[in-house]
């Protein structure tokens, strides 16, 4: 999966005159993913680990159908629900309830479906009266709660989560953890991108390690995490106790 970007080098005066106001354009090709191939059967939970810039988010967006691959082919069987960024479709000037509706509709559910779930979601967030106030009055943790609640309550077949949950207090983390487990119990498939290796180890059945766009390893979480830690040279004890949820 290759990105092709152009950016402008800082224009000198001579450049600007010659090129009618613009600097010289440089084209860079970034190979975000090279030769990544794998199968993920149903009811597996896939953890994706790797350094920053390894291509994890690109991979996850490709799976969700947001970025078409430059080469190759992707097949998905099942309904996908993504939590790639918090509050997609949300309008911060509007209240929590209105944003639940917006968020649910943005993900592709009908108005009736969202209305059915609204009470359940509202209760789960434990935001109480804040739900009637505009989201500009929320803290980032509260917004995260709301966004997460909307995403996980929509009964996806395949849930994709991208490092979304580092905010949130301890009780929320516990709730999120519980909810993730219940989703798994319903035999759904999940893809989780995370730097919190303890979460990956605990929740995931399979894991892949991406480095610089290449699929370095596909195996059980324990194997993959060990290999990843070995390569980064970071003390495993420090890293594997980090938890998202």
């Amino acid at each position: 999966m290759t990105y092709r970007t152009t950016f402008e080098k800082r224009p000198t005066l001579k450049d600007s005159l010659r090129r009618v106001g613009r600097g010289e354009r440089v084209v860079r090709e970034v190979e975000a993913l090279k030769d990544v191939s794998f199968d993920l059967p149903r009811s597996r939970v896939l953890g994706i680990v790797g350094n920053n810039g390894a291509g994890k988010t690109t991979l996850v967006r490709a799976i969700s159908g947001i970025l078409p691959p430059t080469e190759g082919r992707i097949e998905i069987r099942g309904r996908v629900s993504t939590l790639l960024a918090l509050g997609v479709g949300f309008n911060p000037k509007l209240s929590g309830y209105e944003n639940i509706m917006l968020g649910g509709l943005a993900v592709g559910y009908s108005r009736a479906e969202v209305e059915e779930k609204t009470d359940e979601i509202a209760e789960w967030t434990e935001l109480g009266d804040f739900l009637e106030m505009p989201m500009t009055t929320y803290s980032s943790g509260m917004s995260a709660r709301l966004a997460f609640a909307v995403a996980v309550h929509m009964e996806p077949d395949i849930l994709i989560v991208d490092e979304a949950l580092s905010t949130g207090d301890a009780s929320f983390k516990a709730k999120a953890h519980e909810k993730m487990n219940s989703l798994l119990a319903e035999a759904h498939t999940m893809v989780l991108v995370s730097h919190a290796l303890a979460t990956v180890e605990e929740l995931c059945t399979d894991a892949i390690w991406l480095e610089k766009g290449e699929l370095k390893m596909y195996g059980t979480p324990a194997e993959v995490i060990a290999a990843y830690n070995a390569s980064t040279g970071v003390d495993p004890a420090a890293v594997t106790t980090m938890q998202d949820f």
Partner: protein
Amino acid sequence: MLAQFRKPTYHRKCASARGVTVAKAAIDVKTVADDDEFRGTFHVYEPYRAGLPRNFSGYLKELWRRREFMNEMTRANVRANQLDTLFGRLWNVINPLLMGLVYLLLVLILARGATIPHYFVYLLAGLFIFDVLETSMSQGAKSVTSAGKMVTNTAFPKALLPLSAVRGALAELWPSLIVLVVAALAFGIRPQFTWVLAIPVLALLTVFCAGMAMLLATMQVYFRDTRSFLPYFMRLWFFASPVLWAADQLPKSGEFLRYINPMFDFVATWSNAIVYGEWPNPQVWLVMSGWALLALVLGGYVFLSRERDFAVRI
């Protein structure tokens, strides 16, 4: 459990196997049954090639299915903009009134235009209908580029974005119509049967605006200067349309405008029907439909064939 370089086993479409297959090797496309890209339970994503989406009717179906999202988005945007203001929803009426007054003043100062009867009402009618186009185009142009977060994080038929702009323009029209009717009655124009004509004209105009919005949205993604040029282009278009002047005031040298300006017939038919109770010639309907269809097909094709490229370019 799966070795790194294992060749993926290829599953035909079977409902029991759910999961993800990411493969580098190209597989014969025609053997795989195509399903609705956004909604169905089987999706195939392939490299982007400019061209209409493979499952065009599926796309349209999904567009229709997601209309509630579009409606809600439009409503939310309108509400959010008015929330902090003092007059709030009253702006829906104040806006058209102020606009009409400003232009009336302009024309009175120029002292030339106020020679046709009921000039003020004529001006209002033309203004409001042209404004539908102007709003559709300017909001449509920024619709995709300003929804960057949604485009890069959710899979949805992106035609919803410019269409939402058109819907917003229509939403602004309804209160203006009330102002128009009140003004008409105030200046002694009785409700006439030709007022019914407003509906088909508006319908055709909506189609035209939808096409233009989609075209502009695509242009803006590839050529970000579009929004800077747009206001000047719209001004020119405005002066070339029978808003400030009446269709029969056109001098001989200006006759070509009748043919090259799509809005000529829309505005003239609308304003004449509302203010003077004139029925248009039958061929005018043909011309209007022609323009509307052209815009829709052109705008729609340009947008839909390049839509999958947007996420990378925003």
